[in-house]
């Protein structure tokens, strides 16, 4: 009996240690699941400040990380408080020769851009999140270099709600979206 008790105790110990280890792994690590995690985390992105409204749509927290060259990305969140889906179908900006809605997709170990066919849907009562690693507006052929503190004006066109102008500050590229990308504990 003593032997059986000892081996059972031993087994319990192994199970608890293993459990604690696995729990530590899942509690403290926001990077473990790679692409899936990023996509999931983006669903929890902080909305930031509401900056523009059109119809039932509200645009939250637009920003452009200061770009190293003449290509930049514009990010924001669109919240749909209506009961009908809408679509973001066109973006234009005076600072860029071209503004296109793209998605960064991960295929296995490879990352690439993909066009967003037919616009980006904003579901009723839901939101569309443009954030690093997912949907973004690519601004190319910039007329002038963008620096922290500049403001990018852009016009968003929605299928039903119509058009709205937004102002996106140029930020330093490390904060903003990254802070909203994962909800793990801070060290």
């Amino acid at each position, binding site marked *: 009996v003593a032997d059986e008790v000892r081996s059972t105790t031993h087994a319990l110990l192994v199970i608890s240690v293993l459990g604690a280890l696995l729990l530590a792994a899942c509690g403290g690590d926001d990077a473990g699941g790679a692409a899936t*995690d990023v996509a999931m985390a983006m669903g929890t992105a902080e909305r930031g400040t509401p900056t523009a409204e059109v119809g039932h749509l509200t645009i939250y927290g637009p920003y452009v990380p200061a770009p190293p060259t003449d290509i930049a990305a514009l990010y924001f969140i669109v919240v749909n408080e209506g009961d009908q889906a809408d679509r973001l179908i066109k973006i234009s900006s005076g600072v860029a020769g071209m503004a296109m809605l793209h998605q960064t997709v991960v295929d296995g170990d*490879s*990352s690439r851009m993909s066009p967003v066919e037919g616009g980006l849907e904003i579901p009723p009562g839901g939101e569309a999140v443009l954030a690093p690693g997912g949907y973004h507006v690519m601004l190319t052929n910039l007329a002038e270099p963008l620096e922290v503190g500049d403001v990018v004006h852009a016009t968003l066109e929605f299928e039903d709600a119509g058009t709205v102008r937004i102002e996106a500050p140029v930020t330093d590229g490390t904060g903003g979206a*990254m802070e909203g990308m994962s909800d793990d504990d801070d*060290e």
Partner: protein
Amino acid sequence: VHSLPVRPHSFGIGLFALVALLLAACGGETAAEPTGAPLTEGEQVVAELGLHGTALGPLERPDFVLTTAEGAAYDFRAETAGGVTLLYFGYTNCPDVCPVHFSNIAAALAQAASEVRRGVTVVFVGVDAPRDTPERVREWLDFFDADFVGLTGTEAELEAAQIAAGAPPAFIDEQFEGGYSVAHAGWLFLYTQDDLMHLRYPMGVRQSGWAHDLDVLVREGWPTK
């Protein structure tokens, strides 16, 4: 006496079920984690040290030669041997993930202790041969940190480097809507002082994550068992 072994046994099952339950709950948040599978040695180290990378079976520090943005030959393995090295295959027209990676690494290093800062070499390889000229790679990197190493090469050299590092060779799609697109490795590779890659980093690691990991790895290295 006969009933004694039964109780701790069922207690054990109860505990097992509890652990399984907690793991299932946790699995919902990190869907890509294979729940229930035993942790590899690398995954245990990641958990113990609280690292933000993803463990993989170690790969050797790769052997390839490219050209620096300044025009000198750069033997990656010889130049970086024995140190902590971050290697990224990107391109300078990358609007989304590349600048985010580099902004966060640069910000973490700018605030790191000088020992840590000196102990990390960051290497960016421009895989878009036609457009990633030495000047453009230098301009792109200087925006983040002038100490970062920028490498270019011919298409054949670039492909050889990516294969040596175990990265999927970049593919350029010239027919892409509104210009062109580059499919490239989505991971950042990290080599430690033992000249192995135990970890690679996905998009989405924050500045605080880099600061923590680079500090731990420069000061302590990858633990040997």
